[in-house]
């Protein structure tokens, strides 16, 4: 599988990373080099193998339904690049 320029643009858009037209070709080459190298996995026989999602071999622990957090809008907003009152602010979103 080899990426074309349109695919590079599409995944950059999905990842919300602005990529200039002059960068597309370089990225395409690098990504194809990595993907080409990854293709070696195709030679592994994985028939009947269950995928391993993580290294922790446990079941999920559950916590009690108790309010232990929140009530600190200033802490939550202290790092915000832009705030208005106790809101985060972004350019107007049209739905």
């Amino acid at each position: 599988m080899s990426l074309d320029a349109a695919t590079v643009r599409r995944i950059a858009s999905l990842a919300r990373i602005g990529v200039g037209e002059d960068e597309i070709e370089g990225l395409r080459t690098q990504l194809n080099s990595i993907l080409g190298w990854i293709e070696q996995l195709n030679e592994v026989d994985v028939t009947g193998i269950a995928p391993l999602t993580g290294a922790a071999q446990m079941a999920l622990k559950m916590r009690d339904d108790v309010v232990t957090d929140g009530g600190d809008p200033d802490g939550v907003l202290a790092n915000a690049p832009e705030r208005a009152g106790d809101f985060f602010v972004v350019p107007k979103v049209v739905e």
Partner: protein
Amino acid sequence: MLTDLTLAVARAGLARRDFSATELTQAHVDAVEALNPTLNALITVTADQALAQARAADAALASGDDRPLLGLPLAIKDLFCTKGVRTTAGSRILGPFVPPYESTVTANLLRDGAVFLGKANLDEFAMGSSNMTSAYGAVVNPWKRRQDADAVLVPGGSSGGSAAAVAGRIALGATGTDTGGSIRQPASFCGIAGIKPTYGRCSRWGIVAFASSLDQAGPFARTVEDCAILLRSMAGHDPKDSTSADRPVPDFAAACARGVRGLRIGVPREYRADGMPGEIEALWQQGLAWLRAEGAEIVDVSLPHTKYGLATYYIVAPAEASSNLARYDGVRFGLRADGGDLRELYEHTRAEGFGEEVRRRVLIGTYVLSAGYYDAYYLRAQKVRALILRDFTDAFAQVDALLTPTAPSAAFAQGENMDDPVAMYLNDVFTVPASMAGVPAMSVPAGLDGNGLPLGLQIIGRPFDEETVFAVAAAIERAAGFDALPAIRPGAVAAE
């Protein structure tokens, strides 16, 4: 010099009042001041905080307090969130970020009395094997080549600042994180010890995430025992991390003295990669000979899927990273680059905020998860990952630990391996399989190459059996008698 002490010796000295915690910390603060402009090992220096902590430690020592890390100055990889102290993850995008919380691991160290000298440099978001991808400049390896002393060497990565700080003796120890080798490879490059414990041994809460199913915190120090002391404080169950293991934390330092008599040590034949440098092969054989001499039995084992570890890693880690890094969007914290609308704001912020390697991995990760490619890449990689784990499980049915080289080379120079991302990725070929399986692995300095640069050996153990790893590493440390010193260190530079 106080900066030459091991952590264990410094601790004993403090207990005997040979020197005060303030004197110990002042010596390290002075070393930071003298050497950090050269090494660039710390992004943020917290000298005032360190001295205040040291004074508090002196008061506590005077009252008989014997917490295990009381008054011992450490460097903290700038991936651990530290309350009120800027935490950058080596990225522009977190340049202005001051966490309102303390990571569990650093909170554990503070609980045990540690002093924090500052935040150690790293590859951006821990993505790299050279520390060249940091937005805060490259880190300089304190070691120099004998034949080419002008070459500036990399400390390895991603925890390059932590390793350089400990090797350059500006900190007694340091925290690191290891996703595919980010503790072990820089430890090898800088001639110090470093352990990636079992996945789940240390809480990930408050550590900026790279690849959640692989990330694991661990210590660096100049001796195996020092690593054991630090890990005991760092480790432990944390209900805030669902992947944290609810297991007691053993006395790792006690295990260092166990010896290896009767242990079965595996040699994975697939690690004999084509083109392995002769001196690394020789050091490996030397390591096996030392262990045999100490009474261990050496056993050939097979990890047939090891050679696919790296390719698997370069699907799984970028996939998780592409999702973990979506939160850096310029809205709630960190850098914001303006845009006419929300999409532009995101795209400008993330284009300006992320460096080249991070962008590359986020794009790869986005691609391997995207519609139509998930099965071919991500799902297949998860299945290969299951096979890699099975290899280790099978091997550990026969042996107690594995011995391998840590890295395929000694430290390389800045600018080398930079053109081809895949060539850089090959640095992690020996370290990645243990990461994929979640098992503990440690690098211990074992010798020098022809250029006088340190080389490490890697000990890989069973899940949650760090004690055997420490026992084997300590045996190698004793046998190797590694006492070479890096060119850049307190005193040495003053003499130049």
